[in-house]
């Protein structure tokens, strides 16, 4: 492809939209992993549920997805609380060395349940909605309104969470728990409450992401799995529990896919994604953020 194309702001816009989506989905998972060491392989299914919330709100009442997003986030909080009361205290109590394998199993089970319940309730037929699909031209860049909304909301939420972590007491507490739960407890952080808050936030962000992505994706009960994989790739790449690192990694993957395709060929799109991930991990076994941490 030509150099004109590489320099095109159109590409930049697409890379940002894609990357912001990855960053947002990854951020939710990172909060849950960082504070609790839970491998939530059902994360993408929360995205799916959020997308259905947006779809039904739109189909039944005409409520546009950006306005349904808070509802999807609220559903995420409800599910987080239900999970917390029903299962997590048992899982977290079972000894640290088993948490990762066992949480993998629990969330794999939950994922299967949620997907199939959704299929029973909504059928597996793909759904889609049409909203905000006008194209706006700014400085030679064509942008679909829905994609602008996704970009802005995703960046705002990611930025808000990162700033909130630095600027608020709860944020500092979450950072402390991510860094070292035991030490945080010693200095008086209410670790169970902080974890619960992080779980709420993580699930809410996933639901919200789903509501936004419903504007541009087919919606179906089994749409979540690719988001789960993408979210894990993002947070591992950024360094587990490193929320800022994850956001950077998400954006990076958006750029790798868009610009990588422009520099090579579309057929390498997926290989670029996973290739970057694998290469970075082999060079830096703890993800991108590790090196930055040692320097600081």
């Amino acid at each position, binding site marked *: 492809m030509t150099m004109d194309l590489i320099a095109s702001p159109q590409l930049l816009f697409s890379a940002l939209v894609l990357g912001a989506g990855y960053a947002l989905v990854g951020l939710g998972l990172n909060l849950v*992993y960082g504070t609790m*060491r839970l*491998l939530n*392989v059902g994360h993408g299914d929360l995205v799916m549920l959020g997308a259905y919330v947006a779809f039904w709100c739109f189909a039944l009442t005409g409520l546009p997805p950006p306005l349904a997003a808070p509802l999807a986030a609220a559903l995420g909080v409800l599910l987080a609380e239900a999970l917390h009361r029903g*299962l997590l205290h*048992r*899982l977290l109590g*079972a000894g640290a060395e*088993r948490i*990762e*394998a*066992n949480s*993998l*199993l*629990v969330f*794999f*089970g*939950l*994922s*299967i*349940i949620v*997907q*199939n*319940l959704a299929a*029973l309730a909504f059928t597996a037929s793909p759904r889609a909605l049409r909203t905000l699909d006008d194209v706006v031209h700014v400085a030679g860049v064509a942008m679909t309104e829905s994609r602008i909304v996704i970009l802005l909301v995703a960046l705002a939420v990611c930025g808000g969470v990162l700033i909130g972590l630095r600027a608020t007491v709860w944020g500092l507490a979450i950072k402390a728990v991510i860094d070292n739960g035991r030490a945080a407890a010693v200095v008086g952080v209410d670790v169970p409450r902080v974890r619960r808050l992080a779980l709420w936030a993580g699930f809410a962000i996933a639901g919200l992401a789903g509501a936004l992505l419903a504007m541009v994706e087919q919606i179906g009960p089994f749409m979540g799995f690719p988001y789960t*994989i993408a979210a*894990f*790739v993002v947070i*591992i790449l950024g360094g*587990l529990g490193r929320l800022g690192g994850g956001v950077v990694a998400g954006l990076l993957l958006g750029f790798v896919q868009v610009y990588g395709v422009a520099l090579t060929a579309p*057929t*390498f799109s*997926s*290989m670029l994604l*996973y*290739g970057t*991930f*694998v290469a970075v*991990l*082999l060079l830096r*076994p*703890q*993800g991108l953020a590790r090196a930055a941490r040692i320097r600081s």
Partner: protein
Amino acid sequence: MTPRAGIAAGAALALAGAVPWLVGPYGLTIALNAAMWVALTVSWSILGGTAAYISLGHVAFYGLGAYVVVTSWQVLPLVVAVPLGGLVAGAFALTIGWPVLRVRGPYFVILTLGIAELVKYAVLNVEAALGASSRLLFGVPDNRTLYLATLGLAVLAIIVAALVRRSRLGAGLVAVREDEVTAETIGVPIGRYKVFAFALSAVIPGMVGGLMALRSAYFEPLQVFNPVISFTIVTMAVVGGAADARGPILGALLLVVVSELLWANAPQGYMIALGVLLIGFVVFAPGGITGALARPRP
């Protein structure tokens, strides 16, 4: 092995070998599934159970073995192609093993998942580049032959896994599971051991993949590189209790039987029931079947 256990194992093996003459054609397909999952899960446990390196990418080995057999179909006889599939899988594991096994914990889990996806897309691209868009396989062996071959691999996997557990290699891998730094400080060559075990745990899945590709007359890369296969292997091992030699066998057999019963009796809800079952396991038997069996001991 005690004499009693030896007799029991011999009887179980004789019974398993006689299955094609005892059950109908449909029963045979279930037995084939069981043999396949036992072979895969036990192989996985050679590294995953002893050293607790949870590979979520074993489908890469399965898929590579399948791809070798499919691409060499009617060029190489199966007695060559299937072991070759195993060798290719093992060689691949050996090649990526050194760098990959420096990565630990959840990073390793997701790294292996990523590698399997990378291999899947690489094979898809190769297939597209070759213009090999639809591969049909004619004259595949019947299920009886496939079953006996897969059963052989399952038994081989069990023997290899048992030998590994008894060997210095197995002891070293257990040390790795407990504390990698201490392990190498007392003299365990952890790098070599992990890579060797990783390769060993890849060979039989490669051969199993080669055999399973023959169950369907039509080859599609998305099917043999489906990440759900990796998830299922890990699920079976954890349900059985991966740290114990019997765990992966019990986990695989239990899930094959239970999911078959649920599937046949509740077509709408069996996946949901399976999900409930998995969660129930973690809640009520966090150490897997073997962990639960061992618990009464003080």
